[in-house]
């Protein structure tokens, strides 16, 4: 085949992508069609997959189709099973895609769609997909071991413990921030609260059905659950319209916060088949279905983007979250560009199921490109709604107040004109009392999705249904994550405490289980409560902490990959992982430092604490605190957050240090020093 035949079509794809990006980036003054964003993104993905991932597979990994994978070597019909690559792709994608890629881009849209889009595309190609692919490869060559075990084996025991400790902290922050999203979406919303609460009896019914009536019939029970869910959404409108019923399901953020904490505790000690497993079916299938539906909706409707390409808030003065473009954009969008959490999935069940080494490229690199596409769609959904509505929904009450008039005045003053009538009409369209200051991303995404889908199916009359469908779909898999995450955190804690008190390791006995569960719930509940009562909306505090911790884990995983490349004596290609590692280290360290020490109290935790401490010393009370005790609580919260951010910085620095040491040792070694399972299967070194 000649070079033109081989590369010609790809050159055309590249040219198309470049043209689409040019249209997206230079379309000032007139609105840009969202399809151009889709074309640009897909072209970038195709080129990156065809060339860059192949380069990594051939030069760095030297994937060998003849070499037996863990699934072939340890085939047990259960955990290790050679699996069709398309089936496994679905499994892997369902495990990595969650609320993150949907929420981050929505929050980042305050700077306009262009910065977010460019970071999503550049980040996934050069960092995110590389990380997923490399970790999958490293784990696959080592019998599918987990990230913690891999770090312990390749870097040493201490970095292994540091990384595990970091993982636990990330989990706490993720659970808190996810729960916060649910609270923000359901506060003062009887319709939303009713439908989400209805998922609990529905899931229990499904659990009973698949435990005793027809075990294993996942399709049947999921359809049953789905029908009941839709009925719950429809009936939710009746609940919202009936003042007596509505009162039963109307809660403030603080009430919902306590309910969620109680729920998390109970749900994670119930048997898994009763609530967790059946709801996982619903949330998984609904997630995949909604993602497909959103993609079709964007393709059919071809909406125009209302948000400007770049807003004035790139300077860091934005109302949704504070901080300048660098580093905060790069931690606000984590999932979709690069998500450290994926390194846990890529070293979990997936490497044990790969049937042929060469498929790791499709599953690892390709799966992440797919998640990135979800993030692009979320960015589109947030950008097709009126920017005035976007800022009304996402700015904290401290800025926009609580009435349509105050919000319209404040948002218009920001430069995004909107009338009080429009704000009220938007709330009425989606069947809510108010849309003002519904931070957290989920409600905004729901409005965007309702806008897109209702234009394709059902028209304006169905908009409220689609809005609550979107809220339910997000709340559903967030609650599943809260339940499963608390359970995983409990096992981790029992393991950790078990080092000192061996009796604690017994996961079957009630005492230690309840104590560990309570500790885990208390940890994320603390941050959730703090976020719910935060005057700046909570997202401003918790989302950066989440982003920093997630990117910190990515930096750790990429450090591991770099060490492995050095140990394989292929350091001439090590820039592939060194560059993203350095970039993530720069982002997390700068962001961590600024969150602690910045003088602007909206950015720096300590500056914020000082402001409240100074007021307290003068006997003054600053909103939202109502008395001196709450004032001291805010000061304490800020200092704990600052400590946590510093801890993240410390973890990054420590693992980087250990990584550099391991790389140098491997560089000086004369031969291959990587610890692959069955090393005889490959020629050592060059």
């Amino acid at each position: 085949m000649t070079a033109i035949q081989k590369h010609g079509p790809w050159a055309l794809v590249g040219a198309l992508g470049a043209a689409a990006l040019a249209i997206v980036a230079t379309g000032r003054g007139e609105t840009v069609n969202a399809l151009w964003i889709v074309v640009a993104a897909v072209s970038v993905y195709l080129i990156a997959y065809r060339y860059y991932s192949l380069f990594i597979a051939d030069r760095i990994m030297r994937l060998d189709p003849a070499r037996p994978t863990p699934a072939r070597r340890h085939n047990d019909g259960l955990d290790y099973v050679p699996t069709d690559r398309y089936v496994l792709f679905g499994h892997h994608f369902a495990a990595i895609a969650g609320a993150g890629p949907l929420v981050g881009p929505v929050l980042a849209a305050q700077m306009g769609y262009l910065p977010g889009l460019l970071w999503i595309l550049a980040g996934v190609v050069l960092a995110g997909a590389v990380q997923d692919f490399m970790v999958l490869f490293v784990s696959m060559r080592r019998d599918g071991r987990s990230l913690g075990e891999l770090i312990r084996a390749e870097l040493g025991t201490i970095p292994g413990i540091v990384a595990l400790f970091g993982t636990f902290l990330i989990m706490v922050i993720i659970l808190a921030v996810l729960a916060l999203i649910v609270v923000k979406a359901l506060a003062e919303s009887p319709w939303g609260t009713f439908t989400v609460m209805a998922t609990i009896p529905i899931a229990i019914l499904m659990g009973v059905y698949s435990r005793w009536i027809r075990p294993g019939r996942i399709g049947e029970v999921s359809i049953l659950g789905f029908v009941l869910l839709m009925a719950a959404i429809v009936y939710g409108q009746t609940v919202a319209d009936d003042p007596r019923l509505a009162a039963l399901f109307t809660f403030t953020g603080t009430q919902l916060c306590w309910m969620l904490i109680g729920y998390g505790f109970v749900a994670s000690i119930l048997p898994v088949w009763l609530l967790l497993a059946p709801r996982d079916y619903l949330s998984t299938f609904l997630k995949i279905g909604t993602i497909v539906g959103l993609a079709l909706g964007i393709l059919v409707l071809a909406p125009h983007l209302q948000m400007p390409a770049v807003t004035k808030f790139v300077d860091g003065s934005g109302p949704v979250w504070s901080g300048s473009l660098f580093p905060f954009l790069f931690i606000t969008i984590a999932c979709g560009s690069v998500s450290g959490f994926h390194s846990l999935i890529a070293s979990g069940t997936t490497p044990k199921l790969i049937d042929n080494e060469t498929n790791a490229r499709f599953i690892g690199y390709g799966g992440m490109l797919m998640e990135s596409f979800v993030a692009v769609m979320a960015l589109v959904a947030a950008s097709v709604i009126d920017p005035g509505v976007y800022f009304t929904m996402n700015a904290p009450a401290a800025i926009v107040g609580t009435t349509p008039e105050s919000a319209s005045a404040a948002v218009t003053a920001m430069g995004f004109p909107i009338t009080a009538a429009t704000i009220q009409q938007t709330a009425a369209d989606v069947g809510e009392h108010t849309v003002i200051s519904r931070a957290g991303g989920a409600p905004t995404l729901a409005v965007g999705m309702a806008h897109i889908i209702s234009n394709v199916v059902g028209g304006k009359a169905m908009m409220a249904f689609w809005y609550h469908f979107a809220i339910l779909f997000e709340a559903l898999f967030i609650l599943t994550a809260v339940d499963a995450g608390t359970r995983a955190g409990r096992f981790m804690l029992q393991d950790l405490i078990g080092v000192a008190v061996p009796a604690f390791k017994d996961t079957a006995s009630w005492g230690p289980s309840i104590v560990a569960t309570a500790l885990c719930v208390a940890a994320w509940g603390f941050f959730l409560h703090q976020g719910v009562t935060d005057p700046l909306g909570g997202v401003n505090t918790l989302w950066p902490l989440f982003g920093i911790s997630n990117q910190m884990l990515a930096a750790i995983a990429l450090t591991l990959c770099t060490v492995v490349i050095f140990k394989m004596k292929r350091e001439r290609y090590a820039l592939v992982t060194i560059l993203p590692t350095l970039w993530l280290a720069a982002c997390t360290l700068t962001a961590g430092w600024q969150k602690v020490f910045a003088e602007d109290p909206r950015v720096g935790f300590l500056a914020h604490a000082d402001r409240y401490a100074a007021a307290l010393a003068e006997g003054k009370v600053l909103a939202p605190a109502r008395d001196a005790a709450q004032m001291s609580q805010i000061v304490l919260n800020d200092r704990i957050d600052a400590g946590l951010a510093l801890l993240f910085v410390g973890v990054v620095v420590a693992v980087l240090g250990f990584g550099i040491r391991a790389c140098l040792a491997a560089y000086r070694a004369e031969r291959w020093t990587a610890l692959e399972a069955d090393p005889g299967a490959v020629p050592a070194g060059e």
Partner: protein
Amino acid sequence: MTQAESLRARWASLARCVCDGARLMVGQGNYDAYVAHVRRTHPGSEPMTPTAFFRERQNARYGIGGRGGFRCC
């Protein structure tokens, strides 16, 4: 094989792939493959029943030590 037959066979294999994929998304592997594996490698022992297999996989995903149910952010 006629064209219609081959089309039908293709359709059946696609449906099987989608079905397997959906089940694996929630942690349920292929039962037939498991049975075939046990029969091939441990001819003496009896494989688990479908219900036992279902419960075993459910516990492996969400239960003690199982981490597969923990979703990404």
